[in-house]
C-alpha cells in the first residue's frame, strides 16, 4: 500500500508479562480472531490495522514483544519511537499485576516521555478467577497517570474501544504537537534516575 492512503500513522507497543494475552488482544483487534491456546507468534513483527476516526484514516502499527518478555530481555529499541504503550496484565494473575512497577521502570528509561500509556486488565471473561480487583487497578493507574481499561480478547469486550480510544488520543496529541511547532521531543528523565553510586560522587 502506498504512503498516501492514511492521515496518521502511529506505533503502538504492547508490554506486560508473558501469558497475559497481549498477542490475543492484537489478533482480536486486527483480525477479529481469537486463537485459543496459540503458542508464540513466529515471524510476525507487527500487525497493521487502518481505522477511520471522524473521517480521517488512521493506520495503527501494533508491535508485539516477540517473546522477549519471557526472561525479561526486551530490547531497548522496541520502546523507541512508540507513540503509545499498552501495558497489559491478567486480572486472574496477581503476579502479572505486581510486575507492573518493573515495566513502568523500563518505560521510563527507554520510551519517549511523550508516550501515552494505557493500563489494560485482560481476561475479564474469567471473572470467577479474578485476583486483581478493579479498584486496585484503578488506584494504581491513577497514581501513575495512566488511562485504564479492562478487556476480554476472547469475548471481544472493550478491545475495539481500547484501540479506538487510543487512536483518538493519539490524534489529539499529534494535533497539539503540531500546534506547538513540533519541537524535538524530550526523552523521559524527570528525576527518577537509577541512582547508581557513581565514582565521581564523593562530595
Amino acid at each position: 500500500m502506498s504512503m498516501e492512503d492514511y492521515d496518521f500513522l502511529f506505533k503502538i507497543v504492547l508490554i506486560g508479562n508473558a501469558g497475559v494475552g497481549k498477542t490475543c488482544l492484537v489478533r482480536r483487534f486486527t483480525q477479529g480472531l481469537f486463537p485459543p491456546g496459540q503458542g508464540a507468534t513466529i515471524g510476525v513483527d507487527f500487525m497493521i490495522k487502518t481505522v477511520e476516526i471522524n473521517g480521517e484514516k488512521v493506520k495503527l502499527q501494533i508491535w508485539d514483544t516477540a517473546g522477549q518478555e519471557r526472561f525479561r530481555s526486551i530490547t531497548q529499541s522496541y520502546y523507541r519511537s512508540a507513540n503509545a504503550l499498552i501495558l497489559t496484565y491478567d486480572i486472574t494473575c496477581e503476579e502479572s499485576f505486581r510486575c507492573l512497577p518493573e515495566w513502568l521502570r523500563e518505560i521510563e528509561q527507554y520510551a519517549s516521555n511523550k508516550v501515552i500509556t494505557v493500563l489494560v486488565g485482560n481476561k475479564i471473561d474469567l471473572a470467577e478467577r479474578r485476583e486483581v480487583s478493579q479498584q486496585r487497578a484503578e488506584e494504581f493507574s491513577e497514581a501513575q497517570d495512566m488511562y485504564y481499561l479492562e478487556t476480554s480478547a476472547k469475548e471481544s469486550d472493550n478491545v475495539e474501544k481500547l484501540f479506538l480510544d487510543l487512536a483518538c488520543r493519539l490524534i489529539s496529541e499529534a494535533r497539539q504537537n503540531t500546534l506547538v511547532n513540533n519541537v524535538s521531543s524530550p526523552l523521559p528523565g524527570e528525576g527518577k534516575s537509577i541512582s547508581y553510586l557513581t565514582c565521581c560522587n564523593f562530595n
Partner: protein
Amino acid sequence: MADNLPTEFDVVIIGTGLPESILAAACSRSGHRVLHVDSRSYYGGNWASFSFSGLLSWLKEYQQNGDTEEETAAAWQDLIHETEEAIALCKKDETIQHTEVFCYASQNSGDSVHEIGALQKNASSVASSTFTEPLPSAELPEERHSYVTNNEMPAKHASESDSKISVEEGDVEESPEKEKYCGDKTCIHPGSDGDKVENKPIVDDDNNQLKRNVITYHQMVQESRRFNIDLVSKLLYSQGSLIDLLIKSNVSHYAEFKNVTRILAFREGKVEQVPCSRADVFNSKELTMVEKRVLMKFLTFCLDYEQHPGEYQDFQQCLFSEFLKTKKLTPNLQHFILHSIAMTSESSCTTLDGLKATKNFLQCLGRFGNTPFLFPLYGQGEIPQCFCRMCAVFGGIYCLRHTIQCLVVDKESRRCKAVIDRFGQRINADYFIVEDSYLNKETCSDVQYKQISRAVLITDQSILKADSDQQISILIVPPVEPGASSVRVIELCSSTMTCMKDTYLVHLTCESSKTAREDLESVVKKLFTPLTETEVDKEELRKPSLLWALYFNMRDSSGVSRSSYCGLPCNVYVCSGPDSGLGSEHAVKLAETMFQEIFPSEEFCPPPPNPEDIIFDGDDKQADAPGTHTTTVANLESPEESKKLESPLQS
C-alpha cells in the same frame, strides 16, 4: 525467573555483540531453534551503549571486577558424565582496562552547600597567596584553584604550571576531606592506576549568569537517559555491508539513522571542513578557483581510476602520499584526500590502496546524503539489539543475566553436545557460538590480542561552529610521529539521541600503543580545554570545554584466527569483539562466513515477509510466512522501504 528455559535447541549463542546477534537473526530466520544468552544485564557486550548513569555503573563493575565474588552457582562438575569432559567458561570479563574518569563539570548539585562552602574557603585562602598574575574576573581564581585542589593525579600535575603545583601541595594539608577521598579510592581500587576523578566544584551563581548555561555534573546525572554512550564508536558506510544487510533483512525497520553531516580535517592547529561532494567543492569559500578545479579533476579521476591506468601505473608501489604530490594538489588538498577522504596512513598506504579507498568513499556519497556515512539514532548499540529482535520474531529465545558455566564435550566424537547454565541446567544443541571474552584462559593461552584506545568526552560546543548546532562530524587527526596510529574523532549532537541538549558527545578511537589516555590525551588537549581553564572573555575564539572525560582500553580480538584457540570442539564457533575500524564490515563478514560454514545451503538473512502482506493476504497466514517471499522482494524497492532509511535524513 518466571519460567524455565527450554533445554533443546539447534544453536546456542553466548554473547549479544554484533556478530553474535547477526548470527542469531540468521539462524532463527532459517528456522533453527536459537537460544541467545548473555551473562550481562544489557545487550551488546562491548558493542553496547549506556545512559550516563549506566556507563558509570558499567565502570564501577570493571573497577570492582577484581574483588567481586561469583554469585553462588550450582556446581556443574558432578553433572559431567564419564564419557564427557567440560570446558569451563570465563567468569570475568577482562576485555576492558585502564579506565580513567575525569569530571570537569561543576558537581555543585545545590544540596551540598556545606561542602561547597568549605571548598570555597579553602580555595580563596590559598589562592590569594599564590596567584600573582592578573585575573580577568574575581571568581576565576577560585575556580582555577579548586580545580587544582582536587587534582590528585601526578601525571596531571606534571602538565600544570609550577605555581599551581605548589598550590596543590599546600592544599593537601588543609583538606582532610580530600585525603580521605584518596584513601577510599585506594581501597576500592588497589594497585591500579585506573580511575581518577577530578572534582571541579564551584561555578558561582553570579558568574553563571554572565556565561552561557554551564552544564553541571548533577544535570548530566539527572538527564542521564538522554545519553546513549557507545563503547565502540563506528559509523555505517552508506554502501557498506552492514547497511546492505540491514536493508536486505528488513532489520532496518527497527532503527532510524541520521546522516553524518560533516567531514572535518585538523591541519596546522585548526579544524576545517573538508569539501567532498561536488556541491561542497563548488560552494567552498576556503578553496580558490584553481584548487576547486584541481580537486574536482582528481576526484573525478578516482571514481573510475581503473580506466586510466596511465595516470597511476608508475606509482603503484609508491606511497599514496607521494602520488598525491605529483597531482598539482595544494598541501591542504593533499591533506584532505589522504586523511579525511581516503582515511589512510601517510607513511604506509600505497597508491593503489589509496585510490581504492578514495573511490569507495566517493561511491558512498550521495546515497543518503552528502557524506558517505550514517549514524543510528540512540547509538550504535541499537544495531545488535535490532538483529536480536529479528531473531526473537522468528522464535529465538532471549535470556540476559544468564551465565553459562561450561561447555560439555563428548569425549569420543570431540563435539560439544550441551552447555550447563548457572542453575545446573543442561541445555542441548548442535552448534555453539561463543563470544571470545567468555573463553577461559587456557583456551586462549596462545592468543595475541591487539588493543583499542578509546576516549568518551562530553563537551559544551562543537569543535567547528556552524550555522546549525546539530552537526554530526567525523575528523581524522593524523599521528604526530609517522607510523603511529591516527585518531578518529566522531562528534555527535543531541539530535542523534546520544547526549543531552547543549552538550556534544565526542568519541575518540585509535589502535593502542599505550594506555588509552597516553594515546589520546594529546589530541584531546589540541581540540578541547578543561571547563575550568576556559577564558571567559574570548568566547568567540575559545575551544570547546570538556565537561567530562573517560578513557579506557578495549581488547581487539578481531585478528585472532580460529586455530589459535586451544582445544575447542569443531562445532564451537568463536565471535570476536569489536575491531578498531570505522565500519562494521568485519562483524558482518564474520557472521556471514560463520553462518555459511554452519548451514552451507541456506540463505543468509533473507527478507522476512512483510507484516502488511500478512494482513492483506487474508486471515491467518502468518504460520506459513516464508511463502510470501516474492511480495517481499518486490517490496524492498517500494517507496516505504527507502523512506525508512531516508526519512530521518530530511529532518
